[in-house]
């Protein structure tokens, strides 16, 4: 196909990918809703406990609308969600959106800071260790990153607390945030959670950056570039990196998605008032509307990041511009 069709086919790919993302979101919302409704547990029974009388059960089912057909409740829930109304919490009786939104803001601050710090660091270190493949720096990062992939988030968190809070006394061990705090106090409070999250996602991105660079490095056109007499850093940065960009971006998005999961554990470690801790608390209380809302928000973030990554990968990789 000629040059003229390039733009047309690429934007079609992008639109297709975005549409697929939207479709996935709808499928996930249905999965979350019907999945939690079809399971044999009963919200009304869970709410009232073992000694509930049949009348009380009936009344609470009536009040929660549990007697209506599932598809009707799903459509009502979905249209509510689209209007920003996630229903009412079973435990507190207050609106879910009102409980979720401020905490979601806190979580986003945490994840955003971690992402902004870890992505350039990971790509930089990955390129550096690919440039000196087999060297002491490369072997050191390889072992260290394999180790930090293998350890749980709370291990990294507690080690950081022991070093920076208990022994050195530089930073607080808990990340409690309250409205009266100044910006400096807030930053000090969230430094350790952000560091933990950075370490959790850094290693994986670093390893993938290195390995996708090295797999491009073994292709003939790179050999050609070396034979032309170019030095290694020019070859890596100018010739190899553009072609390794798509897998690197995919891994970055995957790990930013992983932040969504990692943030849940890290928030519990540091008692940070975010959406992850809210979700864990409401699972323990079996507060279904709140759990569904948190699950939907987390899943949507995850799907959204993956969709964006695929779209950026299409934009970046020249080969993907022409559909096969």
């Amino acid at each position, binding site marked *: 196909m000629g040059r003229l069709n390039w733009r047309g086919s690429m934007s079609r790919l992008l639109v297709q990918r975005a549409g697929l993302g939207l479709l996935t979101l709808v499928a996930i919302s249905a999965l979350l809703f019907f999945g939690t409704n079809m399971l044999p547990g009963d919200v009304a029974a869970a709410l009232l406990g073992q000694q509930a009388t049949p009348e009380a059960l009936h009344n609470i089912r009536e009040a929660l609308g549990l007697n209506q057909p599932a598809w009707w409740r799903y459509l009502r829930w979905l249209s509510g969600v689209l209007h920003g109304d996630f229903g009412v919490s079973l435990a507190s009786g207050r609106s879910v959106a009102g409980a979720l939104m401020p905490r979601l803001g806190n979580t986003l601050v945490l994840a955003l800071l971690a992402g902004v710090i870890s992505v350039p660091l990971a790509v930089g270190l990955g390129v550096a260790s690919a440039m000196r493949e087999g060297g002491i720096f490369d072997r050191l990062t390889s072992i260290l990153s394999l180790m930090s992939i293998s350890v749980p988030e709370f291990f990294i968190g507690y080690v950081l607390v022991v070093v920076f809070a208990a022994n050195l006394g530089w930073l607080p061990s*808990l990340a409690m945030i309250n409205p009266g705090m100044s910006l400096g106090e807030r930053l000090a409070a969230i430094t350790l959670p952000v560091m933990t999250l950075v370490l959790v996602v850094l290693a994986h991105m670093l390893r993938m950056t290195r390995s996708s660079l090295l797999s491009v490095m073994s292709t003939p056109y790179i050999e050609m570039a070396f034979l032309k007499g170019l030095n290694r850093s020019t070859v890596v940065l100018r010739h190899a990196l553009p072609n390794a960009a798509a897998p690197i971006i995919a891994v970055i998005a995957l790990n930013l998605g992983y932040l969504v999961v990692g943030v849940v554990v890290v928030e519990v470690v540091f008692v940070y008032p975010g959406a992850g801790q809210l979700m864990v608390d409401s699972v323990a209380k079996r507060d279904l509307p709140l759990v569904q809302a948190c699950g939907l928000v987390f899943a949507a973030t995850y799907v959204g990041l993956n969709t964006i990554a695929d779209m950026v990968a299409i934009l970046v990789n020249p080969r993907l511009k022409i559909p096969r």
Partner: protein
Amino acid sequence: MSPTLRARPPVIVMCAAVIVVLIVGAALLAPWIAPHRESDFFGVVWGPPSAANLLGTDNLGRDMLTRLIYGARNTVGIATLTTAIAFLIGVTSGFVAASVGGWVDTAVSRCVEILLCVPVLISSLMVISVLGNSIPVLIGTIGILESTRVYIIARAVARTVTVREFVSVARLRGEGLAWVICREMLPNALHPLIAEAGLRFSFIFLFIASLSFLGLGIQPPAADWGSMVRENAQAINFGLYAPLYPASAIALLTIGINLLVDRFATSQARPGGHAIEI
């Protein structure tokens, strides 16, 4: 056997093997090697290491080392069972989908893709909020959710095997689907699947530990490394290292397994069996 396997493995891999054997041994022999009984109390909360309590005592004054040894039982045992379930479901459906093909393959793959779009932690939290967190529910839920990850690998591996000549020959001989899968395909797909089993085990193990740490996994009074971290977390505010012992045990086992898998994967010339994480 490739020559690289026969050559002496590096020191770090030997260390990894020793760690894994020690922990599995501790899990199997817990009642015989533990210095005390699981619920013996020593009176001192978060007591310092001493001759009687080598790693000190925990948040209720029980011996930390004994709890760790018994905890290995629960944590490793449940993770092993869950991995086995995930593999049974994932490998069976992956191989059947790849060899039958057509609409079966498409239907199963689409379902799996939707499940893959939600992080395991989020979907299992949803299930736990409805069904509660008894151990059978945990094993079943995580087993089924992780089997989708196994399915992707198993199907990819099976697709490369199913087009080989000896499979066509077996089919032409009139062998049934189960026979072809078990006798012709599985033996030729074993290496990537073993590497995947190691990785999957360490993911599931870490995942169960995280759930227990969140208070939603294995419940006390059963000793379990994840909930031990949770129970002892307060000690860190007093400058004590109590939660670090179970957390390091978790870290050591996963590092050990990952190093072994890394070694196993690089020693095999055949590519494949890459991990799909999260």
